[in-house]
């Protein structure tokens, strides 16, 4: 009886921790509500500037390339359109919550990970 005493408090502590963990997971939705608003706000602030900066930076890069290589106006024209595409892509990704490249699928880290990205596409 007394030999089995020492591990007992530890085991009880383990049980307690497990219970607390389960409790925390159960409570998650309540927290998720607040963080959904946070994420919405964050997202709204994010995408506004994405498109504009992409176009401006790409066009500026094109202008610089033209100056270096004397290819006026082709670098600027090509990079302007590439910039528009890249900006659109960034905005699209920000909105759909997929932040990687086109073929990107977030690995199954579990429900916690997909919860962070606002909405994964189903495929």
């Amino acid at each position, binding site marked *: 009886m007394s030999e089995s005493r020492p591990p007992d408090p530890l085991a009880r502590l383990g049980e307690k921790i497990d219970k607390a963990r389960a409790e925390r997971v159960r409570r998650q939705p309540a927290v998720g509500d607040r963080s959904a608003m*946070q994420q919405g*706000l*964050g997202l709204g*602030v*994010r995408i506004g*500037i*994405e498109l504009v*900066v*992409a176009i401006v*930076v*790409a066009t500026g890069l094109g202008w610089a390339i033209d100056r270096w290589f004397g290819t006026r106006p082709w670098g600027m024209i090509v*990079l302007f359109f*590439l*910039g528009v*595409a*890249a*900006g659109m*892509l*960034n905005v699209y990704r920000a909105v759909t919550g997929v*932040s*990687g*490249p*086109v*073929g*990107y*699928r*977030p*690995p199954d*880290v579990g429900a*916690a*990970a997909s*919860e*962070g*990205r606002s909405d994964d596409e189903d495929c």
Partner: protein
Amino acid sequence: MAIEIRPLEQFTIERLIPLHIGSVDVSYTNAAFLMTVAVVLITALIMLGTRKRALVPGRWQSLAEMSYEFVADMVETNVGHGGREFFPFVFTLFMFILFANFLGLIPYSYTVTSQIIVTFALAAVVFIGVTIVGIVKHGFHFLRLFVPQGVPAPLLLLLVPIELLSYCIRPFTLSIRLFANMLAGHTMLAIFGGFAASIGLLGIFPLGINILLVALEVLVAALQAYVFAILTCLYLSDAINLH
């Protein structure tokens, strides 16, 4: 009677301690001073907050724990378990920007994050760091990031440059977003403040607007720090959880 309104004056950098090494100007400026204050305050908050290590936290310990948990949660949900080792980086970044933004809201202080060179330096550190992490973790395979899967070869000719460009634009969007928000907000505050001072008794209206604007700026200050940190997390997640 006529009070000059100079809304951009607040962004001038003054040399507090002029210092030159060779031909390089390394003076200790008001911006550097505010950065020092931010770092000292953050360190004090964390050090003093965690000194007692009480089971039931007091006010300061709660604050320190809350900021820890907030960022830890952010890293966990956005990067996953592989991101634990980058928590110190994200936490430092978040706290520094948050404190710099809030300190800038104190009248007569200085908003460090309204200087694009500061925000760009932060964004460049994130960009270069994330790229290095990706290359270290995946080696040459990291370039797969720019090659979308399941796309016919001719289209790749068009898509790879777009992917590359959208990747390289990240430090710019990251830095300009923070800088533009802070610059615009503080300029607006100064303009309405100038109105309030120059039109006498009627100035009570712009003053009222200013009060609302300050509330908005508090929100923006916190939100921009959050956005900067969460984007850092997302970029890290790209580099770590490569397809």
